[in-house]
């Protein structure tokens, strides 16, 4: 019993930065003591893991409450009151009505889906990438036979290119979840192998796919990243996008 208490004291001191080298040496040289030591360490690891699990569970509950609260009414902010002449006030009222009407129309009609329709353009398989692989998938893609492209995709023989073409075919067929999976697979494969084959294309069309799914919160960070990277293949295209519209949708969809 005393030995076990000594081991526990040593463990506590080890965890709090005051371990005795002598005791540790004893543990290392005695298999039975070492076995007890390993069990104690495992027990403490288990307590720490259970503690972390509970902490995450607590924050998760707070997050769920926040999600519900996000539907709450947004408080109006106070404005500065200025005195206007009668005519100026009329003009201002008309401008507010006209501008407000336009803004209201825009607000009412804009959505991630509408932005997807605005920004989606098909991907053409260019000759440098298409010519080398005159396989069934390339031919099907060039013939816009999207079902055949998907049928030609083999998970066992996947490459970034085959994932990309399959993802684009899924996009054309409005199978957005499948498209997202293909594009994310490309990015994961590139990250793992430290390559960038079809990386820019996958990033851009991943953002577009999220827009199609009405998930502007997923799309925005990717588009911002592309806009910030002047060497990105889709930089110019993204720069022409209206980030005001994107943020308006973000605001609208968060309500």
């Amino acid at each position, binding site marked *: 019993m005393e030995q*076990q*208490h000594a081991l*526990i004291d040593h463990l*506590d001191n080890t*965890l*709090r930065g005051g371990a005795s080298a002598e005791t540790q040496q004893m543990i290392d040289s005695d*298999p039975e003591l*070492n*076995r*007890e030591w*390993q*069990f*104690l360490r*495992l*027990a*403490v*690891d*288990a*307590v*720490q*893991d*259970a*503690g*972390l*699990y*509970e*902490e*995450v*569970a607590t*924050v*998760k509950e*707070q*997050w769920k409450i*926040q999600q519900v609260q996000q539907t709450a009414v947004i408080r109006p902010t106070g404005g500065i009151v200025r005195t206007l002449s009668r005519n100026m006030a009329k003009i201002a009222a008309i401008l507010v009505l006209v501008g407000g009407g336009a803004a209201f129309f825009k607000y009412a009609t804009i959505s991630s889906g509408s932005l997807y329709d605005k920004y989606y353009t098909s991907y053409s398989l260019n000759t440098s990438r298409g010519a080398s692989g005159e396989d069934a998938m390339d031919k099907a893609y060039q013939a816009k036979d999207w079902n055949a492209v998907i049928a030609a995709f083999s*998970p*066992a023989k*996947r490459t970034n290119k085959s994932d990309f073409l399959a993802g684009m075919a899924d996009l054309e067929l409005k199978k957005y*979840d499948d498209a*997202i*999976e293909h594009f*994310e697979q490309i*990015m*994961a*494969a590139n*990250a*793992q192998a*430290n390559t960038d084959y079809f990386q820019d294309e996958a990033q851009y069309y991943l953002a577009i796919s999220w827009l199609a799914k009405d*998930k502007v*919160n*997923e799309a925005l960070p990717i588009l911002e990243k592309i806009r910030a990277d002047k060497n990105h293949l889709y930089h110019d295209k993204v720069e022409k996008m209206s980030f005001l519209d994107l943020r308006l949708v973000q605001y609208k969809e968060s309500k």
Partner: protein
Amino acid sequence: MRVAVKYTDAELIAAVKDERTLNEAILFIYQQYAASTSSFIIHYGGSEQDADDVFQETVVSFIDVVKKDKYRMEASIKTFLVSVAKNIWFNELKKRERSGHREKIFEYGRDQKEQDISHQIGDLEKKRQLRDLVNNLGEPCKKILMLFYYENLSMKEIVEHLPYENEQVVRNKKYKCLQALTGVIKNNPAIAQQISEIVKS
């Protein structure tokens, strides 16, 4: 606790490592990544509850990896989280298949070349079993061990939190609780075998 800040991956790692910002970091992870991971789990046949459980397990694993300095910034945090979630969910599906739950197991791409993260996240099933042992200890023991080993409180601080007379009483109770936990762990044959192998090597 409303997180207004947006972390970059590097900032998020730093926030996870710092006890003072850990909760904000966890909240940020939920705000940013829970939806996409959940849609993946649901896409592969999971329920909303499955997605909820898998993501919680994913977040715990991620924090554990980061705190143990085992996280390598080879991929983005999002990619890492998705890989961990996939790993957890596919293992869960296999487990359900083994135990005869064949209601709707999808073709979940066994031949898919997944990012191998098992060396980073360790044996999650074993962790789950150990966590259950802690939870079955009973509330007084669980609390005292959590306060000391997870919250890093001193004996003096624990006396303030729990209805014990003095530090010595708490100390004795803690000995007993840790011994009790070690005892139930020893009774788990698979874990005992693993410990024997570690000691031998």
